[in-house]
């Protein structure tokens, strides 16, 4: 693949692949942004799946949470119910 925007190193300024404002540069900017956004989207999906699995495991007792059995009925505002008897 010939990506060089120059034919000689004499009096060179910008010399990166394809050169400024070229189709190749645009293509890889778009590809980079898509991969960047895709990584975050993949992370959202992965977290949703793992959360479902962990919640299911806690519910059926496969995961026993140290110091929290029975679970302390947490609320989303971070206020814990009475500490479990140990």
């Amino acid at each position: 693949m010939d990506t060089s925007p120059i034919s000689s190193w004499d009096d060179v300024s910008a010399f990166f692949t394809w050169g400024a404002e070229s189709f190749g540069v645009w293509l890889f900017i778009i590809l980079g942004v898509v991969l960047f956004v895709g990584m975050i989207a993949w992370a959202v999906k992965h977290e949703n799946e793992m959360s479902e699995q962990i919640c299911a495991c806690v519910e059926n007792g496969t995961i026993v949470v140290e110091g929290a059995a029975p679970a302390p009925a947490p609320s989303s505002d971070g206020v814990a119910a009475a500490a479990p008897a140990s």
Partner: protein
Amino acid sequence: MTEQVQTALETQGAVNLEFFYWMSVAVMLLIHAGFLAYEGGASRAKHVMASLLKNVLSLAVVIPSVFFVGWFVYNAFPGGLPQLDEVSKAALPWTANSGPNLEDPVTGIFFGAFALFAATTGSIMSGALIERIRLSAFMILVFCLGGVVWLIGAAWGWHGSGWLVTELGLRDVGAAGCVHMIAGFFTLGVLIHLGPRIGKYNADGTANDIRPHNLPLTMFGLMLIFAGFFGFLMGCVVYSGEGYTTIFGSPTNLSALMFNTLMGLAGGFIGAFVGSKGEAFWTVSGGLAGVISVAAGIDIYHPALGFVIAIAGGFMMPRLGGMLERRFKIDDPVGAVTVHGLMGVWSLLACGIFAAGYPSAVGGPDISFLGQAGGMLVFVALGFIPGYAIAGVLKLAGILRYPPEVEIAGLDLAETPSTAYPYGIPATVTYETFLGAGNGSNGGGAPAPAGSYRAPEA
């Protein structure tokens, strides 16, 4: 002077300039390493790898964010609203300046320095959100903070043509406002929506002390951050190959900054040591508070004045942090809002009090208390409003925070197949256990049963 000598001198100047900022970026990376250790140590054992991974990915997100968006934002926003002029167009990622270019030895290294400044904003926020935020939500927040918001603040108040500089005479050489305050108040906005960690507050509103799983690592991390700050402050001056100026156009040198960097560090330690009554976590954080306290006027204070300003900042910091935790129920495990946000406020105001009357080098008003206070209010709003709004949207979408079951089981289970301590870590005696109160924490977040302490084996 012959043409050859002239060419040699110009080449030498260009090489010096590039190498100066190259080293700045390299040393600044220590800040990120330090934050990684800091928040890794501050996490409980079941969340450690998630915290470390979050910090690493902060760097991964923020660098392309600055390349694709942020560098343009910095160059387009000095006037307040975005302007598409020749300078800002040259900062777009597809132009001749945004890549290897033998006629432009500046853009690449400045991009590097700004990317690392941006990484610092992400790291500041990262530690405050540990143990409950989803990694994906964090990455979205880091993109917004590190790639856009702080750079608007930098364009407004950390740029020779920024409107806060030309209209209000704002002076903030060490970036207390655009980096520390914006990151701190952005984080506050996020924390309000995110809420405290499970178990942080009791039903009667009293706060529990959730201890770091590795306080020595946290303290080591802060020492790395201090080392990295010397690179950060290198990046806060403009080196032309012939001499130094501040970003505000006034002449300076590294010697001027060295005085107050070290005196600020020492003063912050002292103030926090006294203010926290010797609490190690706050005392070591005091060094950071001290450097931030003197940052705005770091190039002009007499070192003794910088020392006292830093002591005051360090002294206030643990008290303000305690107030945020107990009165306002803000669970900020590393004190980021206090250390960066509130100490940034103190830094800008202190500069208005103690450095008023210094002239502007770019045609704006002299330094004044009102100018500094005005800039401070702009930075508070510029940090807080986007943080609050974006976190609110993420919360509405249901992707801001993990479900309680995951949080209790440990974020490591959800985020990564890695585990930090597969063979366990030994427990050490807590102060309460030593006194016989039996209220220590075993690092897993649950109160240790009374009498459960076992002395470490010899």
